[in-house]
């Protein structure tokens, strides 16, 4: 079991409030991603759950038990660090076995479990090596092996893939997701990369300035962002925001349209007219950065190749069903 509940969790460092009251319900076996810009408190929130920081207020329940006064060693969670944090003086085997050794498990069983974990992660040939003799990806695997071997209530991942190169990151992303589904263990994963968040999560927690902005499935966040921040943060390229007269006509202060929901028409009538200032041709997609006068700079995404160049006139026609409306305070207006 690994059900984690946060009730009004707060954290301050001196006068600085890092977490301003977080309430969250994480179901057993789910994969939850904390995402947000740097300094939003996502790592701090993870460390509070881990017990590496003490809460200033509120309660953290693991399987119904309040653990705020329980040391990290006794919370039954395991963590994968951004820096991997392997024990440099121990072999791969020693690193993976350490947690089991601390739990006082018999040597035969430790060996059996370590070898099983190593086999899952393709680490068997490296068991007797020291961390310094491994590549970045292999070190990352050892860190994950150390986390899974203890069969914890939940895995905590602190930006574990950010030190890997792009290709390896995509591969490890798949592996981590697959492994988590296979083991069925609750996982909390911190990242600043919204692509990682969208692809890996069952549910995403968007954090900003120490507050939870929205908690929901990736598609909920994409389709029904709760406010301007979430709307702008989730999705790539970023959502276009238009204020002023056009927004007022829709009964909102700001309206937002995603680049993929803007229909591009060459020299067309209606819609928002503008001049292409940059066109990015990726083959599979074409990204247009359009100077649309009173509407400001707009981004449009066209699936496939579109033969447009800087200086060309275009009209952008927003899909009326997919216009997001926001009020004065930035909150989403639902019809």
């Amino acid at each position, binding site marked *: 079991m690994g059900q984690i509940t946060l009730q009004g969790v707060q954290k301050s460092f001196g006068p600085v409030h890092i977490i301003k009251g977080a309430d969250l319900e994480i179901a057993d076996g789910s994969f939850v991603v904390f995402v947000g810009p740097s300094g939003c408190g996502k790592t701090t929130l993870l460390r509070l759950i881990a017990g*590496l920081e003490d809460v200033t207020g509120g309660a953290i329940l693991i399987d119904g038990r309040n653990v705020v006064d329980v040391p990290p060693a006794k919370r039954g969670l*395991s963590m994968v660090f951004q820096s991997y*944090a392997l*024990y440099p*003086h121990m072999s791969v085997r020693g690193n993976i076995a*350490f*947690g089991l050794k*601390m739990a006082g498990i018999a040597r035969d069983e430790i060996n059996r479990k370590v070898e099983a974990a190593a086999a899952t992660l393709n680490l068997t040939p490296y068991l007797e090596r020291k961390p310094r003799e491994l590549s970045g990806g292999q070190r990352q695997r050892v860190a994950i092996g*150390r986390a899974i071997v203890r069969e914890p209530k939940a895995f905590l991942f602190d930006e574990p893939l950010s030190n890997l190169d792009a290709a390896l990151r995509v591969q490890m992303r798949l592996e981590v997701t697959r492994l988590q589904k296979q083991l069925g263990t609750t996982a909390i994963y911190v990242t600043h990369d919204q692509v990682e968040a969208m692809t890996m999560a069952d549910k995403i927690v968007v954090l900003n300035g120490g507050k939870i902005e929205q908690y929901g499935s990736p598609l909920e966040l994409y389709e029904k962002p709760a406010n301007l921040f979430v709307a702008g943060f989730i999705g790539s390229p970023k959502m276009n925001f238009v204020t002023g007269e056009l927004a007022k006509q829709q009964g909102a202060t700001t309206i937002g349209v995603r680049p993929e929901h803007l229909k591009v028409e060459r020299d067309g009538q209606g819609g928002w007219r503008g001049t292409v200032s940059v066109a990015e041709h990726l083959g599979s997609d074409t990204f247009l950065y359009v100077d649309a006068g009173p509407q400001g700079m707009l981004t449009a995404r066209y699936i496939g190749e579109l033969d447009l160049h800087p200086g060309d006139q275009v009209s952008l026609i927003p899909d009326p069903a997919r216009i997001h409306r926001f009020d004065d305070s930035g909150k989403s207006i639902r019809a």
Partner: protein
Amino acid sequence: MARMVTTRNKVISTAAAWLVGFLIFFPILWMVLASFKTELEAFAIPPSFLFFHWTTENYVTVQERSDYFHHALNSIVIAGGSTLIAMLIAIPAAWSMAFSPTKRTKDVLLWMLSTKMMPPVGVLVPIYLIFRSVGLLDTRAGLIFILCLGNLPIVIWMLFTYFKEIPKDILEAARMDGATIGRELIYVLTPMAVPGLASTLLLNLILAWNEAFWTLNLSTLEAAPLTVFIASYSSPEGLFWAKLSAASTLAIAPILVLGWFSQRQLVRGLTFGAVK
């Protein structure tokens, strides 16, 4: 652009390094040579470098006139004892400052170091009077105490910089892995800190072994280490260069051997933090 390393440059810099090394080593070499000369040859002008009448008579005289082993034993007890006690105090101090620093940690460290800035002679009289009234003059315990206090700031600083280099993540990983504080210390921190502990220990041993100010002033015979033994040969009655050299050679021999075998550790300890 990368600097070109030509063979010629290499030869020049190697030769220069050897020259500097030899210049630094020369006084020690000269002292050792002088210890094998007769008193007359020891201050002959022009001095003879290698072609003189080699003799070991100085060593015999030195051992006859004073008890080398008595002083050597005192040196071992005082240097070893003060180092061990300093380490025992410094490890937890440096540990707590490195891993749970407070707002005042930097100030505490600076304050500790500032005590080394005062010339010891400034407190000689009060310390002497205190030692006299509590009966610590010319005792090993007294010297262990004062040397330990004197070197403690340096030991704490060295250990602090060393502990600081150990990534906090690794200790947190151990905590997440279910290790208690004690086990974290034994299985994770200590193995990672061994090189730092060893070099700190060695350096402090050498500092304590060579310490002359307090040992000369606070001991006469009973607790006197090798520094006093050497000093007894520079007497106002006359110059006994050969015998003084023999005494000095005997005094530095143990620490020289120790330093020779541990030079890698020492260099690593002294440059730690500067090079990763």
